[in-house]
């Protein structure tokens, strides 16, 4: 019997070989030198049925801390927002799910139209002129923005102002190192941007990068450093948080030339961080320099509105080594999920979610700070995440909370580059948390202090 994935009936192979005009399948392999052939089975288990696989995978999944058993306050770049059921239902339709990149526009209008809608929503949310069809994740979107800035300015220094997600910084450094671009970080930054340091570092820079809300959750007015950047002919790159945008000034308001972010939480669960959704937006003047796919509106032969991938001569399959980026496959399905998500929530839902994150985070911060030994080390204004100082090493508090079914936050000691010591934790709140969840965390922390 054939494997269920392979539709080859009895006797068909012989019939096909006859049509090909060879006596055996082996003849077709003649160009492969014998000695490079494997000549044995791969050392892998035998084929397994669906229910065998389900049993193994369910066992592996059960080794992870699943949401049904744990209340989580983890953020740090991955956010657990509510996802309406219709998002899964629609995005798992075969028509979207098993289609390729819509190079044949005539049979890809479904995907092309949704990408156009995605680009439109992103542009609205950020205030920027245009968004591309997606990149791999927020970190590589930042790296691509930096490479674009270096390319259009002809300069090779990137200045990182204030606290940037340490993983983003690492990806930025990886991408820049290849092209000999220097990445400069502020060793003196304490929670927020040190504008003096940025000014001193700007001469010769291709771009200044500022994350807001920053890695510690603090919302910064980045318009000042962006103005400083402009005065030195450097580009301004903001790393933004899509869920904060209904309440806060947009990257465009701040004067950003490029604005990038992580869109995973727009309609997808945390997914252990991937597949994620790199958001990339910019001004119209850079349209011909952007990485990745872009969908534009046009008309077909009969004058009917149609959507196509456009400004294709930027891309690798046409421009090869002169392409603006090597990216080909992107995160289209995640972009579709974000589009459905934003359609479902609408302007009111997006605002409700943002307000609840804001209110609940402040409720929790205030109560946590009142627990003996706890404090809020940064005084700046924040959105849904904040740093707490813990009376004992954060990893101890986290381990004790975990034993009580709570994942209270991210231990900042995991990022030695931050130099924030052992007693700090980054706590994140979303609209999904109830008052009982928040009070529960405070109670667990109180117990953990008592030991």
């Amino acid at each position, binding site marked *: 019997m054939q*494997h269920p994935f392979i*539709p*080859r009936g009895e006797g*068909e192979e012989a019939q*096909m070989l006859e049509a*090909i005009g060879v006596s055996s399948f082996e003849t077709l392999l003649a160009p*492969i030198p014998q000695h*490079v052939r*494997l000549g044995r*089975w*791969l050392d*892998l*288990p035998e084929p*397994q049925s669906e229910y065998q696989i389900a049993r193994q995978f369910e066992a*592996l*999944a059960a080794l992870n*801390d*699943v949401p049904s058993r744990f209340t989580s306050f983890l953020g740090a*770049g991955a956010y657990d927002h509510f996802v309406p059921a*219709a998002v899964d239902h*629609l995005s798992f339709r075969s028509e979207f*799910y*098993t289609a*390729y*990149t819509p190079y044949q526009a*005539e*049979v890809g209008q479904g995907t092309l139209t949704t990408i156009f809608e995605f*680009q439109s929503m992103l*542009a609205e949310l950020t205030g920027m002129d245009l*968004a591309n069809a*997606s990149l791999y994740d*927020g970190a590589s979107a930042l790296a691509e923005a930096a490479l674009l800035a270096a390319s259009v300015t002809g300069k090779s220094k990137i200045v990182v102002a204030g606290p940037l997600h340490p993983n983003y910084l*690492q*990806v930025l450094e990886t991408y820049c190192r290849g092209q000999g671009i220097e990445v400069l970080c502020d060793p003196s930054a304490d929670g927020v941007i040190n504008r003096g340091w940025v000014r001193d570092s700007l001469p010769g820079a291709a771009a200044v990068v500022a994350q807001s809300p920053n890695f510690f959750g603090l919302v910064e007015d980045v318009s000042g450093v962006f103005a400083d950047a402009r005065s030195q002919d450097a580009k301004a790159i903001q790393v933004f948080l899509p869920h904060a945008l209904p*309440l806060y*000034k947009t990257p465009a308001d701040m004067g950003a030339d490029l604005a990038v972010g992580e869109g995973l939480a727009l309609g997808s669960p945390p*997914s252990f961080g*991937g*597949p994620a959704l790199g958001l990339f937006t910019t001004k119209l003047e850079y349209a011909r320099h952007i990485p990745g796919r872009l969908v*534009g*509106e*046009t008309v*077909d032969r009969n004058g009917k509105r*149609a959507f*196509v991938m456009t400004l294709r001569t930027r891309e*690798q399959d046409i421009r090869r080594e002169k392409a603006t980026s*090597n990216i*080909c*496959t992107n*995160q*289209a*399905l995640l972009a579709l999920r974000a589009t459905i998500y934003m*359609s479902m*929530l609408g*302007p009111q839902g997006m*605002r*409700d979610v943002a307000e609840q994150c804001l209110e609940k985070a402040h*409720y929790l911060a205030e109560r946590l700070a009142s627990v003996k030994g706890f404090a809020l080390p940064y005084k700046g*204004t924040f959105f849904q995440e904040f740093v707490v100082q813990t009376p004992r090493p954060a*990893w101890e508090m986290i381990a004790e909370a975990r034993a009580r079914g709570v994942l209270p936050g991210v231990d900042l000691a995991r990022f030695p580059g931050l130099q924030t010591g052992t007693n700090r934790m980054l706590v994140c709140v979303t609209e999904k948390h109830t008052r009982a969840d928040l009070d529960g965390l405070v109670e667990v922390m109180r117990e953990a202090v008592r030991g």
Partner: protein
Amino acid sequence: MAEKLIFERSRPGTRGALIAPLDVPGKGVDALVPPGLRRAVEPVLPEVSEPVVVRHFTNLSVLNHHVDKDFYPLGSCTMKYNPKINDRMAALPGFASLHPMAPEASIQGALALMWELERALAEITGLPAISLQPAAGAQGELTAMLIARAYHRSRGDEARVEVVIPDSAHGTNPASVAMAGMKAVEVKSNAEGRLDLEALQAVLGPRTAAMMLTNPNTVGIFERRIDEIAKLVHAAGGLMYLDGANMNALVGLVRPGDMGFDMMHLNLHKTFSTPHGGGGPGAGPVAVRSDLAPFLPAPTLVRDGDLYRLEENRLMSVGRMHGFAGNFLVLVRALAYIRSLGASGLAEVSHQAILNANYLLARLAPTYAVKYPGPCMHEFVLSAVKQKKQGARAADISKRLLDYGFHAPTTYFPLIVEEALMIEPTESEPLGTLDRFVEVMIEIAAEIERDPENVRNAPHTTPVIRPDEARAARQLRVKWTPTRNDG
């Protein structure tokens, strides 16, 4: 009537999702957001109810061609069937809802799964060290080029910045080389469609960092002198890199590590059946020989007895490529696929993919020109030179195929074949589908002989017909704007 945009379905006062009322004492946005940071103008997003959203996206979806509908012979893209059990496994809450910053003790199941996948891919490729971080093939290529550079630098060999690439290569190859700050050097193919060894020798030297090769190559034939190629590149001090896009021809049959490759990437969304999703997500793990392992992206997955951890501190590493651990849910699907097929099933995949391609080639060769004769591996390239003389080009044939319910082949690639139609049937297609495709291709050729204009004007039945691409680029409209489209 064109499909409306979701914005054009907006009705003020409607919404698609309910957010529960705030259950903590609220202070109000005005108290919590300083005036200088407050957003002035609300974003214009659609206001639509759930049924309107569901109908809108359902109606858009049916405008797409897709694998679950019919044949998708897109060469180089491996549009195989996507088994449904894989998606169910990826949707398990223990995977889908898992947070990437959870403590190590909270993520042991995910890491164990990644470990199993790494071991399986190491066995399949014959290259023992794996990074699952790269999010797609192109990012895998970039990772490998950075590894090549770091490797040579670690040996004090700063001059090696050239990467040799055949003229038949995928566009991502030279683009990835440029992105890694290196220089692509092109080598031409010979009359067989294979790499010209003399031309290769002429460009190898003390500046050679690596050779990027696709094998089987992009015309679908095996580089039979792969041994000599590897020897030449190694003798010149370069590394051999395999673009794994065509791995669907080799799984269980040939291991890249056994034919002289030092590193490669895999496209899990091609060879290992994870859904293409309309353009992504994919995953592009990189596999390298053991002495290149220290250069792999950090963090790397480490096993200590029964415990797994992500090792961040790696001095020789090229650095981090992904914000978190790569496209994890894609990895879950790929492992489920490998487990479903097992050793015998995986070997059968490449066997049937090669059989299907050769069958189509044999049946179409009398009608369409074949620049490089077979046997082919898992794909082949036809040339519509004869049809062009008769009045219809490769692109027209592709468009005409859409009228018959098939997707088009990859058109005008590889660049070394004039009027190229690159066809990859994969192992998923039954004989009946292949025969139906052959009949249609022969019928289109006959149609070109008697009425080329009808083919030139194709398609005739699709939702839109030959959209004006020049206009899209000239009058750039990349977002909906309230004023223009209202009413």
